[in-house]
């Protein structure tokens, strides 16, 4: 397994938001983490990325122990998170944002990768010298994805990439996720839109108030009556 976490528990402000879950993602997989608001999905991603300390549990990324690894080290190992609500550097230009994405890299192909990102998202190229804060929500999500790809991630974690975006933009973002996955990048996707997430992923976990209540093949979950009732609105 590329990423593994066992009995992961996260508490902050006195609340146990994640209450001991097991999650594993294998190399090359596209895995979804779905569930209602407040189920602990974002907290799980933040703990895996190193933004929140683990209260209990243990885990590994590519065989290296994860729990005590500092945030910036995880990025250097290739574990990259696109946080909820995009999080672009509003006062840096688009080109500078992309450049920051490659900060942890030591190799020299950065200019070529930047051209690849501009080919993937031509709208970013047109505005490369503009400040990221002037972009629309959809463009910011594109920038955040492109910036994460600049890190050449081995495991890309995406937190709610469709949130607040117009349907056409969501389509583009999800097409990109599928393309990136097809190129061999492992993806862990947290998504409110359960149908969309289950459609593109191979496996999925369902979270409910801090616990994983269901997991399995995405196609099975799509047919599961409980999932259909609770998350697919049927």
């Amino acid at each position, binding site marked *: 397994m590329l990423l593994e976490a066992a009995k992961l528990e996260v508490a902050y402000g006195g609340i146990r938001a994640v209450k001991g879950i097991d999650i594993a993602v294998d190399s090359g997989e596209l895995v979804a983490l779905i569930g209602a608001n407040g189920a602990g999905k974002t907290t799980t991603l933040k703990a895996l990325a*190193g933004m929140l300390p683990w209260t209990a549990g243990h885990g590994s990324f590519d065989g290296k122990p994860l729990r005590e690894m500092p*945030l*910036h080290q995880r990025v*250097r190992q290739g574990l990259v998170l696109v946080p909820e609500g995009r999080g672009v*550097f509003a*006062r840096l230009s688009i080109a500078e944002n992309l450049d920051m994405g490659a*900060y*942890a890299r030591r190799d020299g192909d950065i200019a070529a990768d930047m051209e690849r990102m501009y080919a993937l998202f031509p709208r970013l190229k047109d505005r490369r010298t503009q400040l990221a804060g002037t972009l629309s929500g959809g463009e910011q999500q594109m920038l955040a994805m492109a910036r994460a790809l600049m890190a050449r991630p081995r495991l890309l974690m995406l937190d709610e990439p469709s949130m607040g975006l117009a349907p056409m933009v969501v389509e583009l973002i999800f097409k990109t996720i599928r393309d990136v996955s097809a190129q061999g990048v492992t993806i862990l996707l947290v998504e409110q839109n359960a149908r969309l997430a289950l459609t593109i992923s191979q496996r999925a976990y369902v979270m409910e108030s801090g616990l994983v209540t269901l997991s399995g093949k995405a196609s099975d979950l799509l047919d599961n009556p409980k999932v259909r009732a609770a998350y697919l609105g049927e």
Partner: protein
Amino acid sequence: MDTLLQQIINGLIQGSLYAIVALGYTMVYGILELINFAHGDVVMVGALVTYTVFSFAAAHGMSAGPALVLAVAASIVVCVPLGLFIERVAYRPLRRAQRLAPLITAIGVSILVEYAAALIWSKQYLSLPELVKPTPIQIGGASTSDLQIAILLISLLMMGGLLWLIKYTRMGKAMRATAQSHDLAGLMGVNVDQVIAFTFALGSALGAIAGVMQILYYGIGHYLMGFMLGLKAFTAAVLGGIGNVQGAMLGGLLLGLIESLASGYIGDLTGGVLGSNYRDVFAFLVLVLVLVLRPSGLMGQKSGDRA
């Protein structure tokens, strides 16, 4: 004598020193939203280390050149670890505390550094041995010296170097990213603790050189000299827009000019009632006016623009 030109020259020289010290305040504020009140005292330490080096040099018959090099090196060697120590001990443990807590430790550390300096250098006014003998230079009707011109040029050079570092180096990019969001910078693989420590080290190195130049300019050092200098530099940073590096440079130069021009003309304007000893009043008048009329400073963003 041409008063106007003279006051402009004086103002630019003192202003460039304000600017260098203001950079130390504004860089730390940009990254931590913290006012490092001890920064002025780091500058004082740089000045008093220069006093010690010059006393030693004078006693051993050293000439001005080597003494200057030694003074700059020694004050950097003392001030950079001092700045790092202040960050590590007074600010880092409180990074997630309420905003008032680090403000109080900042004042505490400032007092601590001042009285440690009093123990080392006494509470006397210390006059710098006259190793460096400035050659007077006449410009128009005003007089200055090669030393003063050198202070101005070195300050401008340091400002240019700093702008370059922030814009083009890897560490500079990390600093700008960290200033916008610690979490987001961390997600890019930036070691945020290291960037913050570097910011303190850089500010302290600039402060050390400012301290050397300050004592060379006035010829007198004192363990409390960092207090007023620090307040003025802080005012300059606020005038330019605290957190904004170019703003600190502009604010420093402007404050120096305002002070100098105001103190040069206040006698004439008030018919001799107020004299140039009211000079300090203007700096703080500027501070009050900026806070009332344009709290974000000349080049600062409104706080809502922050990422």
